[in-house]
């Protein structure tokens, strides 16, 4: 039995049954990584020794009867490199943090450890989570396992590709404007961005504080729902984290959509959308209708304004969040300087890549005196209107169905030349972050190029169970697809 082909839940069961030891599971996984990662470059750092030691400890505890209520005890997991794991690198794929090792765990990591999951390494990403292709990483590009001349998407490209390439059964990513969903779509895996405040942001190296969320990436909806249950929950260290959360997501893993009302925004499936993806959305709608759901198209207002509002707000917050990288306390410092001003300016200019610098400047601009009202405040007003539009939609529908991205995986090489074009690829995902809503990207077929298509299910705030149910039902109707590795 090739352990690395099992889903996380399947593997977890085998380990609990005593059929497989956690140590073997991790060993096999590490071997696959060794074998395959030179090709796909999903990982920035692999922690083989630590993982094996952890696996031994967890295995002992399992044998002593611990982790009874934890379905992923002993299961390997990969973590995006902007999430702090104590004494492991957290580089954010940036030169600026090339050698940074936090002395503290992110809260999600504490929860993973409580559940007995084994962290095997930190995955590649766009620098500081800014990007949609993982090409802005300081450590090199990740290749899409479906076609190595294409990008895995971003910014959680490494995590999505690692799951697709069977280098890990499950992974953690982060999503600010689509960074879990879009790479999941490009890599043919499942990813969930939770409702804002569901998962603690403590230890997630911030990009845009009002939009960031950590979420699961896996090969099926069940794995994602399970992982989400593990990492969700109130955290006193995060003031924006939600108290009184109902996180019984696994209860939603039922194939029943009878009576559910599903809306497909007409604006989402119009021009600008790859026709094969449109076909997939329509087909999924039909399938859901056949299963007893009520499916119709509708007008979702404000779609055109989500991308500009997103880039203003995200850049503004990022420009502030990234000011702390100054060569004083941690990370990179420029080698030659004669005074403090030079330490700041040269460190930052040398330490950050082009896309990050671009957004620092946009952020500074939209917050600067004279422009604050016209840009930042305006964007916050647009955000309010977008939320309102969704609130209206959710009065009529249980969830919204559409594409995750306007295309399947892009070819690598020239995406960074036209930033605006790249930003427009986020058109279906950013509004979800602005409104703080939950969304799943579910793989649904492949196109004529052999590339996976991703569908997005958007739910109302804290209605993860609704979209998990919808995704699970859809998942039963299509064959599981794997890339030829």
């Amino acid at each position, binding site marked *: 039995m090739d352990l690395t082909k099992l889903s996380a839940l399947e593997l977890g069961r085998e380990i609990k049954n005593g059929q497989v030891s956690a140590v073997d599971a991790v060993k096999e996984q590490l071997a696959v990584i060794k074998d395959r990662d030179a090709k796909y470059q999903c990982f920035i750092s692999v922690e083989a020794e630590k993982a094996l030691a952890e696996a031994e400890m967890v295995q002992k505890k399992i044998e002593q009867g611990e982790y009874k209520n934890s379905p992923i005890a002993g299961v390997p997991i990969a973590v995006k490199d902007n999430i702090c794991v104590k004494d492991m690198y957290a580089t954010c794929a940036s030169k600026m943090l090339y050698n940074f090792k936090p002395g503290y765990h992110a809260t999600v990591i504490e929860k993973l450890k409580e559940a007995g999951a084994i962290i095997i390494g930190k995955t590649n990403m766009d620098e500081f989570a800014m990007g949609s292709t993982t090409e802005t990483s300081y450590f090199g590009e990740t290749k899409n396992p479906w076609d190595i001349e294409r990008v895995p998407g971003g910014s959680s490209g490494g995590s999505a590709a690692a799951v697709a390439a069977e280098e890990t059964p499950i992974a953690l990513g982060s999503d600010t404007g689509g960074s879990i969903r879009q790479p999941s779509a490009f890599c043919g895996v499942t990813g969930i961005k939770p409702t804002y405040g569901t998962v603690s942001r403590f230890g997630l190296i911030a990009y845009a504080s009002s939009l960031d969320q950590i979420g699961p990436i896996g090969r099926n909806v069940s794995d994602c729902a399970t992982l989400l249950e593990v990492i969700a929950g109130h955290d006193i260290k995060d003031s924006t984290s939600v108290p009184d959360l109902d996180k019984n997501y696994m209860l939603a893993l039922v194939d029943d959509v009878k009576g559910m009302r599903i809306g497909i925004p007409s604006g989402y499936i119009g021009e600008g959308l790859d026709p094969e993806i449109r076909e997939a959305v329509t087909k999924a709608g039909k399938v859901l209708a056949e299963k007893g759901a009520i499916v119709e198209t509708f007008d979702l207002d404000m779609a055109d304004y989500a991308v500009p509002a997103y880039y203003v707000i995200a850049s503004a917050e990022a420009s502030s969040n990234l000011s702390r990288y100054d060569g*004083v306390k941690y990370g990179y410092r420029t080698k030659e300087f004669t005074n403090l001003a030079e330490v700041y300016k040269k460190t930052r200019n040398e330490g950050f890549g082009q896309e990050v610098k671009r957004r620092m400047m946009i952020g500074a601009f939209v917050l600067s005196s004279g422009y604050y009202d016209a840009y930042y405040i305006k964007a916050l007003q647009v955000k309010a209107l977008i939320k309102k539009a969704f609130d209206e939609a959710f009065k009529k529908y249980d969830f919204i169905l559409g594409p995750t991205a306007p295309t399947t995986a892009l070819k690598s090489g020239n995406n960074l030349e036209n*930033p605006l074009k790249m930003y427009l690829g986020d058109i279906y995902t950013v509004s979800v972050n602005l*409104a703080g809503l939950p969304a799943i990207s579910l793989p649904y077929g492949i196109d004529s190029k052999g590339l996976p298509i991703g569908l997005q299910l958007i739910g109302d705030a804290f209605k993860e169970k609704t979209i998990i149910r919808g995704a699970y039902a859809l998942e039963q109707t299509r064959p599981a697809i794997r890339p030829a590795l």
Partner: protein
Amino acid sequence: MISDETIKYVAALAKLDLSEEEAVRAKIDLSQIIEYVNRMNELDTTGIEPMSHVFAYENVFREDVVTNRSERDVILSNAPESKDGGFKVPKTVE
């Protein structure tokens, strides 16, 4: 609307020592992006309260208790340069 002065200004605010090439490129990119972003003005937002926090939480507090102890080693462990228990930087001029 994005002039060379603007680029100089925002680069200074962001503490970036841009090269000439980078400044030229930045001017093009920012112009394009800001122009695109201006389309928000098509929306009438009069009377709309700017939404800085998406859900209506308020009053998230902690109690006034000292819970931390010294962890100077951790604090300084990633410092590019440190001395006498502190972070070392070039002389600051008042």
